[in-house]
């Protein structure tokens, strides 16, 4: 791990350049992230943080056949979760969509920013997150549902 370099300049020159390269690259990446319209802290830093911190019942949100269930609020997309999980997808055109989005603390779902809530067998909401790529993230969702 520790290597003598003999001088301040010779051996580590390549490493110095590498560290400087990483620093410059990181700065450019952050600038690029913000310049392309991404949030500095998506959903207040809570997007896809994957902590099952909730334990709350919400009117109109129930598990499907007593199984851990994902309740999705999205304009497009279909779930790729295995059939052993319950999945309910609400579309914006449905009556009461906006109200449900507000109750699940996903108000921007009304503007077609997809989000979902996870419900345990007893009908408690345990997690909610915005996730515009929700249809492709079944692996992440199944890990959380398995823990319910």
């Amino acid at each position, binding site marked *: 791990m520790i290597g003598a370099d*003999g001088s301040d300049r010779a051996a*580590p020159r390549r490493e110095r350049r590498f560290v400087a390269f990483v620093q410059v690259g*990181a700065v450019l990446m*952050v600038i690029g992230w913000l310049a392309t319209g991404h949030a*500095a802290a*998506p959903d207040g830093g809570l*997007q*896809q943080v994957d902590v099952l911190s*909730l334990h709350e019942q919400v009117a109109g949100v129930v598990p499907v056949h007593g199984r851990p269930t994902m309740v999705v609020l999205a304009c497009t997309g279909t779930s790729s979760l295995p059939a052993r999980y319950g999945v309910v997808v609400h579309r914006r055109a449905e009556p009461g969509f906006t109200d449900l989005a507000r109750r699940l603390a996903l108000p921007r779902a009304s503007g077609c920013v997809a989000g979902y809530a996870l419900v345990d067998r007893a009908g408690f909401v345990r997690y909610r997150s915005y996730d515009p790529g929700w249809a492709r993230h079944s692996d992440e969702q199944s890990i959380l549902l398995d823990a319910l």
Partner: protein
Amino acid sequence: MRWLAAAGLAALEGLIALAYDDRGTWWHWMLHQYVGWGLGLSGAGLLAVALHRSAPKRGVPERGVPERGVPERGVPGRRVPGRRAPERRAPGRRVPAVGAMVLGQLVSIFPDLMFRFMRMPHEPWMDWWVGHISMHTGPSPLLVALLVLLFGGWGWLLATSRPRVAVLACLAGPLLLLVACLLARPIPTSLSGYPASVAGPVSR
């Protein structure tokens, strides 16, 4: 062989980045990699300073000033009273940056590795892995992560040439991260705790 190792490491880093991107969590990738790399470099910088300070001192004559007790040039046997030679340390030992960065990165993303390979959801106690949870809801998380990396890099770069500045830079990153985590909002335990309207778009 070195190129092979470099290529393997680059491929591994690429896979890690792709895994984050595949889950739509590029923002998390930036946070945790920057913090991990920065803390790794900070640790390496501090270790290098410690090794540098513990190195044995040795006298080096100042330019143009004969060292005390050294025979004057051209006058065999004659000794002149010169200024006392300053004591300098042996050339510094540098802790390799890449190894330190990878080590810091592994510590920083360990909860994500547990999520992926042990199928374990995140929990608040995972803050022990360098603020893995709290840093999301702390003030300006992206800026904090970037500064941790920049401070760590500067500390490592200056470790043997300007040890005092390097120590300050190496400590600034971890201290900044600690303050950010202490100021972080807790993860909401009820739906009313979520921001009803957060400015800015939601990332993909």
